């Protein structure tokens, strides 16, 4: 299987900056993985995302050391426009990434740029709009959509390129709680149906354990943890120290383990938490000193 991306000893220092935004990062992902990139403000999440389609360093000048490979290509030697045909990018704020006068043109813009035949574009527009739940919005103006709808449209506009790698920089920004849940369901569905690789940058780990296959924890530009969600969340102190909000249930699990050593098994879902705590309380009689 091909690697979706592979960073090898990558260090990124923005022009005019005296410290690296990403520092000696070696990390990669297989195609078809859902990877969550966690980190606080300024941890380097956006830098990581923008490295993958070449915006860093091609639009924002920076010194890059080490290697950045995306879908088998050297990102430093491939133009942004070329990478964009394989890597879909959704930026944090939906406001300023929508620039067309209608929803359908917004979604068609990418495929038009790479000269996809018209009939195919029409099919892709319908597909992408359906995938994000915006069927029938074709003629609406993007500026008159609600915040959540704009976010969905930004995703559809990236999807219509049929990217093999979809990068989303804090996609839950300003979405209401159920809107978030819908978005995560959509991302899982995209992976199931199309085998897309998905990279999500987030500062908040709540609800994320069920979504992703892997969590990468960034702190001051360095990778401090990388692994299956439950493995990373078991080291909750590291998550907290990195300025990321830990999921409440995982946090509870580790607090209980500290307070009642050996009495509970680690848990990550509300159901498991309920069982463990019920056992803990009911077991009280038997293990009383």
């Amino acid at each position: 299987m091909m690697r979706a991306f592979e960073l090898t000893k990558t260090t990124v220092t923005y022009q005019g900056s005296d410290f690296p935004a990403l520092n000696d990062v070696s990390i990669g992902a297989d195609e078809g993985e859902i990877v969550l990139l966690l980190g606080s403000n300024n941890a380097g999440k956006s830098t990581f995302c923008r490295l993958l389609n070449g915006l860093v360093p091609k639009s924002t000048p920076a010194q890059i050391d080490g290697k950045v490979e995306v879908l088998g290509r050297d990102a430093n030697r491939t133009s942004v426009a070329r990478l964009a045909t394989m890597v879909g990018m959704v930026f944090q704020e939906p406001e300023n990434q929508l620039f067309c006068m209608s929803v359908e043109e917004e979604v068609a813009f990418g495929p038009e740029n790479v000269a996809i035949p018209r009939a195919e574009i029409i099919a892709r527009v319908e597909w992408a709009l359906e995938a994000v739940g915006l069927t029938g919005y074709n003629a609406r103006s993007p500026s008159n959509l609600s915040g959540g709808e704009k976010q969905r449209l930004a995703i559809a506009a990236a999807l219509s390129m049929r990217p093999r790698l979809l990068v989303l920089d804090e996609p839950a920004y300003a979405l209401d709680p159920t809107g978030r849940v819908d978005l995560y369901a959509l991302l899982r569905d995209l992976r199931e149906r199309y085998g897309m690789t998905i990279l999500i940058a987030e500062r908040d780990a709540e609800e994320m354990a069920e979504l992703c296959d892997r969590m990468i924890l960034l702190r001051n530009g360095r990778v401090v943890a990388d692994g299956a969600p439950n493995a990373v969340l078991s080291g909750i102190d590291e998550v907290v120290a990195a300025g990321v909000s830990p999921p409440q249930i995982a946090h509870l699990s580790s607090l209980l383990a500290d307070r009642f050593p050996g009495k509970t098994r680690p848990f990550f879902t509300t159901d498991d938490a309920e069982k463990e705590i019920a056992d803990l309380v009911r077991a009280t009689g038997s293990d009383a000193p």
Partner: protein
Amino acid sequence: MNVSIAAQSPPIISLQNARFSYEGGVEALRGVSLNVARGENVAIVGGNGSGKTTLAKHLNGLLKPSSGKVLIGGEETSTTSVATLARTVGYVFQNPDYQLFCTSVSEEVRFGPKNMGFGHDDESALAERALKLMGISHLREQSPVSLSLGDRRKVAIASVLATSPRVLVLDEPTTGLDSVESAQLMATLGVLRSEGMTIVLITHDMRLVAQHMDRVIVMSEGRIAFDAGVEEAFSDPDRLKRCKLLAPPITVLAQRLQAQGLLTEGATTPLQLVEQLVRVRGEQQ
């Protein structure tokens, strides 16, 4: 609801069947009535487009109701200027970049009190206090535009606090902040609250609401779907879902454990829940 407090002193915020339509016909408020007593700590929550921001803008007169009444400190907003209302209500916009324009943080923070004609000395005292409260005294000489989002947001809040309002309205103040910064912000709000400030917080983060707020006003399609204490507000998952909301996981877990008779009270943070368990186990032994 705080009927007893409201009865003692007139509510500082009072909406009576307020309606509002934007030009172009979107009916964003469809008859909203509520009272907020002095010193209350209120969250306004609801789905995207449910009317939260529109409601908040009525609280300092940026928007005036098309019908019905909005009274702030007993005065009708429709006949009072925003500048006058700003002495009572401080409003922090979601986007800090919409208000920062001075060349230094200290100038920025003095801008409000200067507009309101506090004397020069008061102005300095108020500005210093606001900077200290937000923990940004060391940024005094910096240019606001060059700061990080978290710091810009703190400057924006400080610049509103410096006008020494009695009510503070914050529209999604934690978006773009990380967990440390939003915890700091909530702690600062706690300090203000203990000094008697009335706080109205708009947010999509139900964990913050559960942990820090007393009362929850849930908006849905321009109406108040319900208005309740925190415990009660998060007790009915279906009702929440209809309003595009979800209770925080710990709150849900604590409720389930209570239903099983394993806990006696609710909990809003993992730590609270653990402390309760320690107590429960202690008692059982």
